[in-house]
């Protein structure tokens, strides 16, 4: 194998010339970026530009047509579900739709990944799940069924589930969509805490610029299948590209 097939050291996530199409629709075209360990990478872009697809590529849920996706130093593109499970043990994913299991309660959703590992006895798992729900402001919802939650509450429950296994990499897709400003800023605090205390590497997709500024270290703007701009918040705000500039400035909290 050639040297170019090795991952960049210190970057637990790296996309290298990744292309992905759905039928005739090209979503990503030779898109490349890497995320430094313990930092928060914010992925911005208009709807339908492939942000969610990018997160799913990192999780191995979607295979790229070309290019390589490195997670924790390994190219995951050729791996099957069983091999991917090893990588995914260190990975948390909050889906844009939250994707809670609708046949079990909210609390059991959070407990699910813990039960799968079966490292702890049942009462401890329940306590841990309750604790996680508490941390996203859903302390009273353990026995509620997912269908009874509002969109924002589902999002938070999904976050609690993603955090359950204390992942070293956390992918979050629009965490503040459907949340009021106060809850939204609480979620930001939580993400910030996870980043600083647990040294988790974050990839955050969001349209909420004020929130992104609070949590994010590096920002990237996805458009036309590639990153149009990448840098700190200030660099993107001063970007020569009016689209990027407007995007950074026009957004309100919420």
């Amino acid at each position: 194998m050639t040297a170019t097939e090795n991952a960049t050291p210190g970057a637990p996530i790296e996309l290298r010339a990744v292309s992905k199409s759905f039928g005739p629709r090209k979503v990503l075209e030779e898109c490349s970026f890497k995320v430094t360990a313990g930092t928060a990478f914010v992925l911005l872009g208009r709807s339908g530009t492939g942000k969610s697809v990018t997160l799913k590529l990192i999780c191995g849920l979607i295979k790229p047509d070309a290019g390589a996706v490195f997670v924790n130093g390994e190219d995951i593109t050729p791996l099957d579900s069983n091999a991917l499970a090893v990588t995914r043990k260190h990975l948390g994913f909050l889906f844009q739709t939250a994707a809670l299991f609708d046949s079990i309660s909210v609390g059991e959703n959070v407990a699910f990944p813990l039960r799968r590992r079966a490292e702890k006895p049942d009462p401890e798992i329940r306590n841990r799940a309750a604790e996680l729900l508490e941390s996203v402001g859903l302390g009273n919802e353990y026995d509620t069924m997912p269908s009874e939650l509002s969109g924002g509450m589902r999002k938070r429950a999904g976050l609690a589930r993603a955090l359950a296994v204390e992942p070293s990499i956390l992918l979050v897709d629009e965490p503040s969509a459907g949340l009021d400003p106060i809850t939204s800023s609480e979620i930001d605090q939580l993400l910030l805490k996870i980043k600083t205390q647990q040294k988790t590497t974050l990839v955050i997709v969001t349209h909420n610029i004020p929130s992104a500024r609070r949590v994010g270290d590096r920002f990237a703007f996805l458009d036309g299948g590639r990153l149009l701009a990448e840098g700190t918040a200030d660099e993107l705000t001063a970007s020569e590209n009016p689209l990027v500039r407007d995007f950074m400035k026009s957004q309100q909290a919420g």
Partner: protein
Amino acid sequence: MPHSIASNPQPWLSRFLLGVEESLGWFGGFCQFAGLIIRESIRRPFEFGELLRQVVAVGYRSVPLIVLSGLAVGSVLSMHTRSTLERFGAEAMIPTALAFALVKETGPLVTGLLMAGRVGAGIGAELGGMRVTEQIDALESLAVNSVHYLVVTRVWACVIAAPLLTVLMNFSGLAGGFLAEVIVSGTSFTYYLHTAFSSLAFADYIPPTLKTMVFGFIIGTMSTYLGYNASGGAEGVGRASTQSVVYSSIGLIVVNVLLVKFIFFLYPGGGA
């Protein structure tokens, strides 16, 4: 790729060929999926908890449907048998003839079709719903092999439930036949049962009952395949559910012909 054929000057022919090509592709995908299920079946860890839940969902919850249908089918069959055998003055043979018809063919086939309806539609809709709401992706993201966890357990639940439900169907059918008979002739239950089973050897029950495991495999594999690969929102889920019933019913009826032939081949004395 299909456009290589689509360039044919005859539009109806190219449409037909395209349809054939699509169907072949679909069938290829199905066979691959069946292979994956078999491979994943022997991989650890075995999901016993989930398997048990599925056996309950597939088997236990089908019991009322099977018993009621069995009673109805048995009594109707019995009435037909009576009207036929009466002409030859062979009423004493009614229980035997009914047991024969039920055990050999009607029981397995009706059970299979009822399962295709109830279980096939259920699995197709459930997995389809999980697919389009990203719950299958969520499972995978939590380091769970979704084929192993969702698909293998359901397929095996169908394989296990099918022969059990068939035995239940056979007994319900005999009970229905007895009820129909008792009104007309006032026969006793023990006599009825005795005659029903007197001319059937134990080995006669085994092949037709076990063949329903193949029915179960077809129903499970077809409906998980369609549900697991569903796309296109609520409409796609509906399609997966409907197609699960249609395709597993057709698959089962066709494969049944081969199975009956095969059993006759193995047991020339008339095992099927």
